[in-house]
Structures are given as structure tokens and as C-alpha cells.
């Protein structure tokens, strides 16, 4: 049988197309019966939120419990170099946490007062919008979650986050973790990471590590859509503010200033 070059290329092309199509067909044909279920102990909510009460926080007196507990729980490395620092939860003075919301005559103790900052788990998160692989995504309960298996390390999310909540693993973090929590993974070099609102603890029926660790009851966590929850009650009874509300991201971390 004679096969012309053109004919051969045609057949070859169809074969290649078939090879490409095969995994696609397989992916769609696969039965989607998940054999997994939620832990019955899991805490469920429609929109998790956190309130920080600056009047109760004793950070300026040296308390670091929330930060230590979070970073220990999640194997967050302690990197001294500010440029490559990794942090999920930390403190910023009022004027840095709320730029543009102060003025030149503001009382010095407010201006310099430390405020606990972390990922805001925005209702409309820019980081989720820009991620090219859905490695950052929003769960149904409002948590902005990261899939470290999928992150390609493009750092678009870091450019998009207006709160500086994201850290990048410029190098292998393992040598900088003092004591490993064997029940939680670490991250590896080349991926971005951030606070996950303690997804793994909520799914097991526990409150976030920072909230549980705070000895002064300055942190409150709960479902913002549930009128009876702690956070809803506080938001109704106190004057609270958010970080950079003008950007339209609708952050879910709230602050009591005075």
C-alpha cells in the first residue's frame, strides 16, 4: 500500500488528537462517587469570621501565645531574614495595619498599638481571582484555602493580596522549623503559604489554634451568618472596623479598637 506524506501526516495527526482526547474522556467518564465524608465532629459554618479585641490583647506586655501556637501547630518556619520571612499571624502597629485610617494628632498609644493581623479570608478574595491553577480557592464555609500540591509558585496571589498576608518559600523551610508538629505537614521551597483559619482543626471539631491559645480572650471565632454566634453578637454590640474596606474585598477579620 502506498501512503503519501500528506496522508501519513493526516493519520498521525488524528492519532495524536486521540491520545490527547483519551485522558479527557477518561476524566469525564470517571464516576464521581466520592467515598469520603465529613467528620461528624466537624464544626460547620456558612461564613467563618474572626474578631480581634485590641482592648484585651496583651501583646505589648510580651504575650505571643496566638502567634506561637499557630506557628507551632502549622510548622511555620522561623526565618530571621525579613525579606524571606514566613508568617501566618503576626502583629502590626495601628498605623501600618490600617494605613490611611489614622491622622497626625492621633494618640500615640493608639498609633503604636499592636494589632494581630492574618489572612482576612475575604468574601471577594483577589488572590483566588488571580490564581492560574485554582491552587488558592474558596471553600463553601468562606475559608480561603491553599492546595500546596498544586501551587506553581508564580506569586500572582502575593501581588494581588492587599494585606501582605502571603509568604513565599524562597528556600527549603525544613531547617528553620524548631520543633516539628508530626501531625501536620510542612511546606516545601517554591510554594506560597498563608493562614488557613485552622481548616484541619475546624474539620475535627476544634477552634482555631490562635483563638484557643489566647489567654486574655482577645480573639473570637465563629459563623458570621449565625446570629447566635460569639462573633455575630460582638459585631452587633461593638464598633468594629476592617482592614482596607475601601478595596471591596470584604474581609472577614474585624477589629475592636477602643
Amino acid at each position, binding site marked *: 500500500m502506498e501512503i503519501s506524506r500528506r496522508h501519513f501526516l493526516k493519520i498521525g495527526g488524528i492519532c495524536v488528537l486521540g491520545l490527547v482526547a483519551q485522558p479527557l474522556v477518561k476524566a469525564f467518564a470517571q464516576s464521581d462517587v466520592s467515598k*469520603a465524608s465529613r467528620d461528624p465532629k*466537624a464544626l460547620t459554618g456558612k461564613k467563618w469570621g474572626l474578631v480581634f479585641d485590641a482592648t484585651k490583647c496583651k501583646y505589648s506586655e510580651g504575650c505571643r501565645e496566638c502567634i506561637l501556637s499557630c506557628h507551632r501547630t502549622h510548622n511555620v518556619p522561623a526565618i530571621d531574614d525579613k525579606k524571606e520571612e514566613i508568617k501566618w499571624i503576626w502583629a502590626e502597629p495601628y498605623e501600618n495595619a490600617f494605613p490611611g485610617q489614622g491622622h497626625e494628632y492621633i494618640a500615640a498609644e493608639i498609633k503604636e498599638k499592636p494589632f494581630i493581623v492574618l489572612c482576612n479570608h475575604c468574601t471577594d478574595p483577589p488572590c483566588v481571582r488571580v490564581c492560574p491553577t485554582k491552587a488558592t480557592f474558596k471553600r463553601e464555609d468562606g475559608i480561603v484555602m491553599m492546595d500546596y500540591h498544586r501551587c506553581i509558585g508564580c506569586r500572582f496571589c502575593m501581588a494581588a493580596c492587599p494585606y501582605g498576608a502571603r509568604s513565599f518559600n524562597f528556600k527549603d523551610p525544613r531547617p528553620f522549623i524548631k520543633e516539628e508538629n508530626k501531625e501536620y*505537614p510542612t511546606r516545601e521551597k517554591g510554594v506560597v503559604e498563608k493562614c488557613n483559619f485552622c481548616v484541619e482543626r475546624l474539620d475535627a471539631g476544634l477552634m482555631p489554634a490562635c483563638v484557643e491559645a489566647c489567654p486574655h480572650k482577645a480573639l473570637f471565632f465563629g459563623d458570621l451568618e449565625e446570629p447566635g454566634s460569639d462573633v455575630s453578637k460582638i459585631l452587633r454590640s461593638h464598633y468594629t472596623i476592617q482592614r482596607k474596606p475601601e478595596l471591596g474585598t470584604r474581609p472577614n477579620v474585624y477589629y475592636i479598637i477602643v
Partner: protein
Amino acid sequence: MIRMRDKPYIILGLVIFLGLLAFPFWYNVGKASAAPEPSLDTPAIRQLSQKQCVEARSYMRKSHMQLLNDWRNWVVRDGDRIYVAENGKKYEISLQNSCLQCHSNKAQFCDQCHNYVGVAPDCWTCHIEPEENK
């Protein structure tokens, strides 16, 4: 244009190319490595009355990678952390906290086969290996 006097060079080039292509074969000739025998001898497994993994041995052998892939997606993306096995038993979905609790001998259990078939899953850059019990 192919000229006749280039013939030796072309043949030489082809021979070198084929030689390089077949590198893994001739490099390993006579160096047959022993088939791996994953060890199930760990303290946790010894204490099990019924020595069975989350699914049947044959299924685990063939499809553990697919299962782990599903596990990962269920937990990370859906938040479903309980695995319901074929026989109805329930397990916590976790590489570190479930799999490796029994298979605490990662070197004998995981690495042996993976090395033998020449695959390098990158689980352990993030998931913490158990401290090997010798």
C-alpha cells in the same frame, strides 16, 4: 541533499545516537537487582488482629497511588476527612496520621518499591516521615 560520500558520517552518527538511546539498557546489563519485598513488620501492624490495610492487598498494590490522589483531593479541596472503605469501615484520611501510623517503616515499605520501579513521588518534601524504627 544527501551525498554518497557523506554515508560513513551518517552511519556513524546513527550508531552514536542509537548507542546513547540504549544507554539505560547496556549500562544496567548484568546488574539485575533483587525484586523488592516490602516489609509489613512494624510494631503497629504486629498488634493488629486482622492484618488488612484500608482496602484489600491486591487493590492497594495496584491502586494506592490513585487512592492517595483521591484522598488528597477529598481532604484539601472538599474538606471530607473520613474515608469509607469497601467493607464499611471508616478511617481518617491522612498520609501522616493514618498510613504512616501503621507503615512506620517508610524505607522498607515505600522507598524499596519506588526505587525499584524508578519513581520518585515528592510526598516527603512536605509530609513528615516517621522516625524509622530499626
